[in-house]
């Protein structure tokens, strides 16, 4: 009888606990759809900021990368040297350290740049080192006969570079530059450490306001995964579109 009661009690307690566990989960789901709702705007703002930073940084990285690749292809030893040192430096220093140097170090010298601009700049500079490698291999992949044709028809070095070499190299580089962009997006989460409330920064705020780090970071995880996934599809399409009829096999 005693034993029976005890069993009954335990079962009852288990049932209650299961009940509580269940409500907790449901509450969690509820939180995502309802409690998180007021914060969605903040997260969306963060996502938008991430996209803005990354698009600007991609443009910056391609410009820097093209310039560095151009220097590495130039006849001047000095320019080639500078470009090589640039690539070596920025690929071999943690991004976080570069970022802190720009954001917290430079003000000591009286150079103040806001978090957004610092973020874009730092990503452009670091991304540029990677982009320059990609563009450089694009340049090296160009059939030398095409450049010789431009030469014998009297195109200047400058025109040949701008109208023949770079357009072909960039077309060849769309896919690998896409990977650089995806890496920029992933790396941009580090910008939350310099008070920039991009996607990760906003998620941090929401997590601390709601005391629901699990749910919030799960959403963050999904957000990055879908952002980069959509982007990789867009890149593949862009590559095909840009190179339709231009490359023998796309």
């Amino acid at each position: 009888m005693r034993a029976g009661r005890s069993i009954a009690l335990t079962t009852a307690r288990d049932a209650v606990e299961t009940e509580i566990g269940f409500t907790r989960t449901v509450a969690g789901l509820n939180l995502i759809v309802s409690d998180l709702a007021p914060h969605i705007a903040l997260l969306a703002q963060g996502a938008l900021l991430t996209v803005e930073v990354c698009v600007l940084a991609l443009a910056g990285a391609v410009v820097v990368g093209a310039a560095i690749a151009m220097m590495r292809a130039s006849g001047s030893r000095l320019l080639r040297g500078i470009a090589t040192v640039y690539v070596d430096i920025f690929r071999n220093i943690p991004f976080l350290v570069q970022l802190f140097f720009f954001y917290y170090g430079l003000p000591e010298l009286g150079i103040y740049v806001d978090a957004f601009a610092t973020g874009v700049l730092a990503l452009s500079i670091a991304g540029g080192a990677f982009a320059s490698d990609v563009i450089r291999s694009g340049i090296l992949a160009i059939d030398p006969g095409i450049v010789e044709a431009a030469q014998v028809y009297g195109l200047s070095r400058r025109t040949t570079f701008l109208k023949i070499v770079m357009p072909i190299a960039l077309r060849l580089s769309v896919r690998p530059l896409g990977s650089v962009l995806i890496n920029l997006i992933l790396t941009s989460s580090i910008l939350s450490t310099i008070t920039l409330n991009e996607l990760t920064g906003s998620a941090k705020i929401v997590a601390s306001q709601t005391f629901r780090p699990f749910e919030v970071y799960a959403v963050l995880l999904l957000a990055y995964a879908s952002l980069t996934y959509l982007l990789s599809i867009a890149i593949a399409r862009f590559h095909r579109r840009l190179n339709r009829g231009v490359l023998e096999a796309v």
Partner: protein
Amino acid sequence: MIRIENLKKAFGKVTVLDGIDLSIEPGEVVSILGSSGSGKSTLIRCINGLERIDAGRITVDDFDVSNPKELAEARKRSGTVFQLFNLYPHLSALRNVTLAPVEVLKRNAAEAEKEGRALLESVGLGDRADAYPAQLSGGQRQRVGICRALAMKPRYLLLDEVTSALDPEMTAEVLEILADLTGRGTTMIFVTHEVAFARSISDRIVFLDQGRLLVDLPCETFFAEDGGMANARVAQFLSKMRKD
């Protein structure tokens, strides 16, 4: 006039052109024959300034190709058509043709385009002007290559085995265009293995052998038993070509 005097060119220790003397007058069609490795392509590449020469002198209408200041002028006077076409892959057929006239000769874009279309029309590519090179057959690509050269209105046309990457049918369509050009007084320097065609269009035949200019004769004489054929190397070369 293209004047080549005592031209020497070596790649490392290998002498590829060994004292070439050759002059080509405006209006002439000169074919350059010779076995593989005899230096024909290198000779063309020296004339258009793609190779630096080691000794001697090459002038195109008195502009010295070894002088960086004169090379640009020399290049404006000659147009090169390449064996592997070397078209700009990211530009349409029309843009391939108009790029240099606009960029180098500073021609008005609309005019250049009109002339470019007319040129493409004249080689049967009027409806393919907007196609990219990769969308064209080999023969069509080479016809674009010829138009690209002609668009610069060159006095001299340098052609290095322009049909050897093409199958017989496409070769025929390209040769037809070249034959047509000779009829209009275009000066041509024509490197080829198409001996029969060279015989039909040339005023003169030049025979290279191991970097030396062995024979330089009027076309008729070159193929005569007591002319070029009297040279053992020429006879050997021609009999080998006939067998192929």
